[in-house]
């Protein structure tokens, strides 16, 4: 464990100090007179100033065993698993979903054929917000940003011919997560896979929705109740399920810095831990199933330091503050996706190179699974060809470069260790602030921070700052604000197009499901949910009954909207 207050009693190496001074005075200054540095100030994307050179004095009092330790052991700085990629490579998990369930099913099969090792499902916006495809709110959105799912019938088509007992599935779903999880369980059951054999992840992380991504439905407290319901249910019945994927990805995409991504995500993680404990669960019963999801952005070393710091911070808090006993509760595992916002619409093929560098940072940071963006995503949903290149990028990194052959290869770099410490320090400062909001509670602090627009304001400020740096060319984006040419010969990629026909089909098939289901039974299930939502009982069993009776997500969410109310965000600038 790195104790940050030790900096007061730094034991500096005075020989190195003197030698550094000599080097600067007699060598560097002379050189700078001839060729000055190319920037006035070097910094990371989080505005952390970067020096020209780092040496042992930048990580004083460094204690290898205490600060770094071994992979798979406290404080997990070097890795979550003892053998890391030497035993098993990261899971190559490409996020996919578009059009109807049948179309996405075909994309899944294509990816599996090309060597993908896990599934990741993107749902269309109406599903994320709990609207039926036929709702006026769904106009123009059906199948556009993900697959259109209304009822269990769609989920059956989505995973048709894919053995849920063999593959793990991640589902990017938040406010209606418990409903989609219930549907997944029901599909498994139909395939003959009992729920305790299912593996996968629901994102189920509502806090970051209020803070960044904005696909919330209900107010924070009832949303949290639904989340804790899934945690409680899975702990008993679906033990291999990752109940929440606590996500920094969207916080970053909304414009935060790397430090904010790290601090807000881990802070949210601790809030969920407190919520679980408040329900009466033992921390070690559910904390091992919490997983994380980070962004991989452009500043290479800052990203690597972020992943490393995340593991150490989480381990320390879980052990020291929340008194978890099981080392699996201390161990932070995470999925990574390369930064969507870093993709450019200008000369889109350059995105292949950006994604490669970002993916490499994630691997060097020890990610458990990885999604690489397709180069055409600043223009449209990814085409099959573009997705294949993105998957190949991972395969090249894994099998050709040798970077996966030793664990945490950058550990011990003066610069990387210093930067890891620095990010940890800044994260702790954010934690202190959130805790202050919550009078000692991270959960209450998160609620207060959301309602006071604290997170939203921090993120909005950071993203505006970034935009100003782009416009002033302090940050260079190749072919956006530098090296631009009007090149008409630059081949335009073939883009994937989702037609409005998909919407018509989906609305029809939903009507067909409603026609053929047992209407009385469906209504009884909805009534039961309404009744139980007003009690403190765990809602999962009732949701499971409702999805099996082919109630739509929209119908179930409408009941919750009635009982819990809807959340409205205040504007912030």
């Amino acid at each position: 464990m790195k104790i940050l207050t030790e900096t007061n009693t730094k034991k500096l190496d005075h020989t190195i100090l003197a030698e550094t001074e000599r080097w600067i005075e007699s060598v560097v200054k002379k050189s700078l007179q001839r060729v000055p540095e190319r920037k006035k100030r070097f910094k990371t994307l989080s505005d952390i100033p970067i020096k020209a050179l780092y040496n042992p004095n930048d990580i004083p009092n460094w204690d290898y065993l205490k600060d770094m330790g071994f992979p798979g052991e406290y404080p997990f700085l070097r890795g979550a698993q003892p053998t890391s990629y030497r035993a098993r490579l990261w899971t190559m998990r490409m996020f996919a979903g578009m059009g109807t369930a049948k179309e996405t099913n075909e994309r899944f099969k294509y990816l599996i054929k090309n060597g993908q090792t896990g599934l990741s499902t993107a749902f269309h916006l109406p599903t994320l917000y709990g609207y039926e495809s036929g709702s006026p709110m769904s106009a123009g959105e059906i199948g556009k940003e993900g697959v259109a799912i209304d009822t269990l019938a769609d989920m059956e088509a989505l995973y048709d011919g894919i053995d849920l007992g063999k593959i793990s599935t991640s589902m990017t779903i938040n406010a209606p997560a418990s409903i989609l999880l219930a549907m997944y369980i029901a599909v498994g059951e139909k395939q003959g896979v009992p729920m305790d054999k299912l593996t996968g992840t629901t994102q189920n992380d509502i806090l970051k929705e209020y803070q960044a991504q904005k696909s919330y439905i209900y107010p924070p407290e009832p949303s949290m109740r639904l989340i804790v319901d899934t945690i409680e249910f899975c702990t008993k019945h679906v033990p291999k399920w990752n109940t929440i994927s606590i996500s920094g990805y969207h916080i970053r995409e909304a414009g935060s810095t790397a430090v904010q991504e790290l601090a807000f995500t881990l802070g949210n993680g601790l809030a969920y831990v407190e919520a679980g404990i408040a329900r009466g669960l033992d921390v070690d019963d559910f904390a091992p199933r919490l997983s994380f999801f980070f962004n991989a952005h452009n500043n290479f070393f800052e990203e690597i330091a972020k992943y490393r710091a995340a593991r150490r911070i989480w381990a320390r808090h879980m052990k020291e503050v929340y008194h978890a006993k099981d080392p699996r509760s201390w161990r932070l595992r995470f999925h990574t996706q390369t930064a969507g916002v870093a993709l450019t619409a200008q000369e889109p093929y350059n995105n292949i190179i950006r994604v490669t560098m970002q993916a490499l940072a994630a691997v060097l940071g020890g990610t458990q699974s990885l999604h690489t963006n397709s180069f055409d995503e600043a223009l449209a949903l990814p085409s099959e060809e573009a997705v294949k290149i993105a998957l190949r990028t991972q395969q090249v990194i894994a099998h050709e470069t040798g970077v996966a052959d030793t664990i945490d290869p950058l550990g011990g770099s003066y610069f990387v260790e210093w930067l890891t410490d620095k990010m940890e320090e800044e994260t702790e400062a954010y934690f202190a602030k959130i805790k202050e909001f919550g009078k000692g509670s991270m959960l209450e602090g998160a609620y207060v921070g959301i309602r006071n627009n604290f997170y939203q304001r921090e993120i909005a400020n950071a993203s505006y700052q970034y935009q100003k740096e782009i416009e002033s060319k302090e940050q260079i984006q190749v072919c956006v604000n530098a090296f631009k040419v009007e090149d008409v010969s630059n081949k335009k990629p073939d883009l994937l197009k989702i037609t409005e026909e998909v919407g018509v089909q989906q609305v029809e098939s939903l009507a067909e499901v409603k026609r053929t289901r047992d209407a009385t039974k469906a209504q009884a299930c909805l009534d039961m949910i309404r009744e139980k939502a007003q009690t403190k009982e765990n809602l999962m069993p009732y949701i499971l009954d409702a999805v099996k009776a082919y109630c739509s997500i929209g119908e179930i969410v409408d009941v919750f909207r009635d009982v819990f109310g809807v959340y409205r965000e205040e504007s912030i600038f």
Partner: protein
Amino acid sequence: MTTEIQSKNTQIQKYVDLLKNPEKGPKKKRALARLITFIENGGPEAAKEIIPQLYPLTGKAHIIGITGAPGSGKSTLTSEISNHYLEQGLTVSVIAVDPTSPFTGGAILGDRIRMKKNFTNPNFFIRSMANRGQLGGLAMATKDVIHIIDAYGSDIIIVETVGVGQSEIDIFKSAHTTLVITPPGLGDEIQAIKAGLMEITDIFVVNKMDRDGADKRVAELETMLDFGENIQIENDYSQAKVVRCDGWRPPVIKTNGLTGENVPILLENIHRHFIFLEETGFKKKRLQFRYKHYIIEILKYFLVKNVEEIVFSNEKINEFIEKLLAYEQGSDPYTISEAILEVFLNRYFS
């Protein structure tokens, strides 16, 4: 240039006619919005073309002023108050004033977000306005806009601002009932109330009542009111004398704008205040006062304009200027100005 003015006046006429039409609908709403734009951009010159035609239709709305610091939850509360009136079948309009950035002259106006529940309701109208600095004649423009909305047929007009600076406080001279919102926990705000808002407040609202310190804030305000009751206001010209009417002690009401808790109590008090104004004759007193101010502002504008025009282009003024250059007793700029003013006043009032 003249054709431009002509075409503008034709447009104004078109929208004025639409607004006079008793039938409501999106067209009338658009006419209202267009006329407000003309006032915002054209000031008294545009208002001169519009207000005289609409004035006979005004005088019916209950005008409520709402002010509070950023973060006091005033927009959310405004939205809740609007809901209640809309549910009673009344027509409600909101003028939401936000500050203009002194550095760039731009503004972000975000109040519509909190009104989302209502803004497609045909009986609801909300207009966002930037205060365009303190020199922009905001108070005057707001008075004009209130009159247009009144003529449009709005039963309730709510004017909402952060209440910073004299110009914004002046807005409330237009209101029948002024609410000052002060949530618990903003420490120095009591000072701000003492400084300027105290004398224009008809009802104090301690919003965000679920927060710590709400009761303490109520007690603070009550104490302040106890103290304030004994203050004799000497200056007859002061707003305070007219607003701080005998027999009305501003009630202090706790609310929660987010949940709507206690909003009905607040509405009752607004109604009670309105009845009070009517019954005691204070309403008339206030109206007289309000129109004096309105007239003063209009006079200032046109006098300045006329005076400038005359001083720079009228030959007769040169006789006075000549005298100045003699540097004699009685030919100084003050005496000369007084003489000119005499001529003006004789022309208008004798």
